């Protein structure tokens, strides 16, 4: 199996205080700790488990700064074979479609059976990159995958759906799977393994190196414009609407109209 696994270096905002920069459209990340995106960590583990079972090669692809090399080396310490880190300021990386285009540009033209991504990113939570990547690569995809079975020329993917439903689909390879957390138990990357992984190939490329037209992945091509970021104000009032369903609906509609919400 030849697998690509796409990973993202994200801030841990679970406990940290989030502050919007004076520009109003970016977040002050100076006090955050950064690590591999949680779901991507499971994607790495799944790719390594498949390699250990079926043989083959796993390539890490990531768009990010030099500081993210430690995350990439950790993935290689766990068993990934080589890596490509794309770094280019011209990428409109707030837009999952632009990110997917860059990832597709990095992967396209190479032979592969599977591409893994995490099912969502902890920072922007779009849940779109993996699916868009499949479209740009022109291959099948399954999202929110909680179990993977490799068949002859196919992959059986167990998808976790709403309400606890599990959907099982078979896809012709090559395919993109977006991996849901909990599919496995990601292993630890011991420091000795990380040191040994220094010998593995980690290429750094810009858009020009990959033959990607900056105009197609930059802010001009993006249809997403971040206009304003703000911390939602904590509201202290809540109103419980009493009555029969019809009364409740009427009262609710009245509140919405008065509030200018409809």
């Amino acid at each position, binding site marked *: 199996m030849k697998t690509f696994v796409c990973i993202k270096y994200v801030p*841990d905002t679970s406990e*940290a205080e989030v502050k919007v920069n004076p520009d109003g459209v970016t977040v002050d990340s100076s*006090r*955050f*700790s950064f690590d591999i995106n949680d779901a991507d960590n499971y994607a790495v583990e799944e790719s390594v488990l498949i390699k250990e079972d079926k043989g083959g090669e796993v390539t890490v692809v990531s768009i990010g700064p030099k500081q993210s090399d430690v995350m990439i080396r950790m993935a290689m310490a766990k068993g990934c074979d080589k890596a490509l880190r794309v770094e280019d300021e011209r990428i409109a990386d707030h837009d999952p479609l632009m990110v997917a285009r860059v990832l597709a540009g990095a992967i396209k033209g190479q032979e592969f059976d599977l591409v893994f991504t995490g099912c969502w990113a902890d920072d922007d939570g779009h849940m779109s990159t993996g699916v868009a990547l499949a479209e740009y690569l022109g291959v099948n995809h399954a999202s929110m995958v909680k179990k993977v079975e490799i068949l002859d020329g196919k992959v059986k993917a167990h998808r976790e759906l709403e309400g606890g439903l599990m959907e099982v689909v078979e896809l012709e390879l090559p395919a993109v799977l977006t991996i849901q957390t909990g599919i496995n*138990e990601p292993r*630890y990357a011991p420091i*000795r*393994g990380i040191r040994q992984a220094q010998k593995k190939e980690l290429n750094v490329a810009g858009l020009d190196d990959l033959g990607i037209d900056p105009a197609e992945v930059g802010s001009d091509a993006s249809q997403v414009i971040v206009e304003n970021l703000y911390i939602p104000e904590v509201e202290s009032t809540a109103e419980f609407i009493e009555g029969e369903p019809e009364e409740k609906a009427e009262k609710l509609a009245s509140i919405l109209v008065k509030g200018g919400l409809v």
Partner: protein
Amino acid sequence: MSTESQTFTEKYDLLGCIQCGRCTGGCPVTVRADLNVRQFVNDAYDEEKLDELARLAEIWDCTACHTCAVRCPKGLKPLEVLIGLRSMIVESGKVEPTVRDALQSVLLEGNPWEKARATRSDWMEGLDVKIAEPGVAVENLFFVCCTNAYDPRVQTTVKNLVKLLNKTGIDYAFFPDDESCCGSEVFTLGEEGLFEMLVEDNTEYLNEFTAERMVTISPHCFTTYRTHYPDLKNPVIHYTQLIDELIAEGKLAWKGELSKKIVYHDPCYLGKQGGIFDEPRRILKSIPGVELVEFERRRERSLCCEGGGGKMWVESESKKERLADTRIKDAKALGAEIVAVACPFCVLTLEDAMKNLGYEEEMRVAEIMELLGEIVDL
């Protein structure tokens, strides 16, 4: 530090063991887990058996309290055989997620608590803390410890310490927030490579600062620096030694009485590993009104709270009574109103036990600095 070419038998001097049983005879964990360290020392001699031994769950029951090492007539450290077996699992990467996350956090953020490095000094907010500068000599140079820095429950220890230091006017400074974990728990969890890296990097960092002595606040940092950092240029002491000196010099002014019955719990890393038994007791006895009582199991025989040996991140499979519960029951039987300790891990484990047993109304667990903060004029 061993070299890769050493065999397991050579590294842990297994042939030095005479199978006398002093280790197992003192191991506090045996009452609640199947751990038999003597058997591990015996069986690990067979190199072909190592993988099988490393997969046994009980290797993670050891709290690294060092009772076995203290009692060993041959000067061996049986617990380190268990740490060696843990290393094999760590190298395979297949450790508990909690262990994985703690170790990774030490590598990426310099602390095992998955907290951002940039927030390490947030505890200082609102306090006038003197910060050390490389090359500027200071008498007492303080190393805060990851747990004291980040855990709100034990931050009181360092906050009170700063107020007390400012009040006495002694020459002191704390390391800036680029200090990293001492690696105590990294060592006992068996991440040899990461521990070697920490020793190397921390030695270089800590030696940039000049002090008459480096004062540690957690016994885990205290013992780790003294035992595993051979090239530190500044001598290492525990803060209770400093406070003991200050009291002897009459530098603390009491603002009232603490009329309580207090029992002191010897932390393993301070007592049986660091040889500090008397200073904490002298501090407590000097507090006006305090009646100090003693556990039957005290000093070198002190019962471990199970907070060391990486156990903050590994849950034992045993469902039998936790040693911390036993300790708190013993304290209650003595009629103690306060269980005083001088270790952040002991505070956390013993307080959990106290709450678990429902003794909150009649008893409290307190770090010595917490008590001083209440009774010293700051």
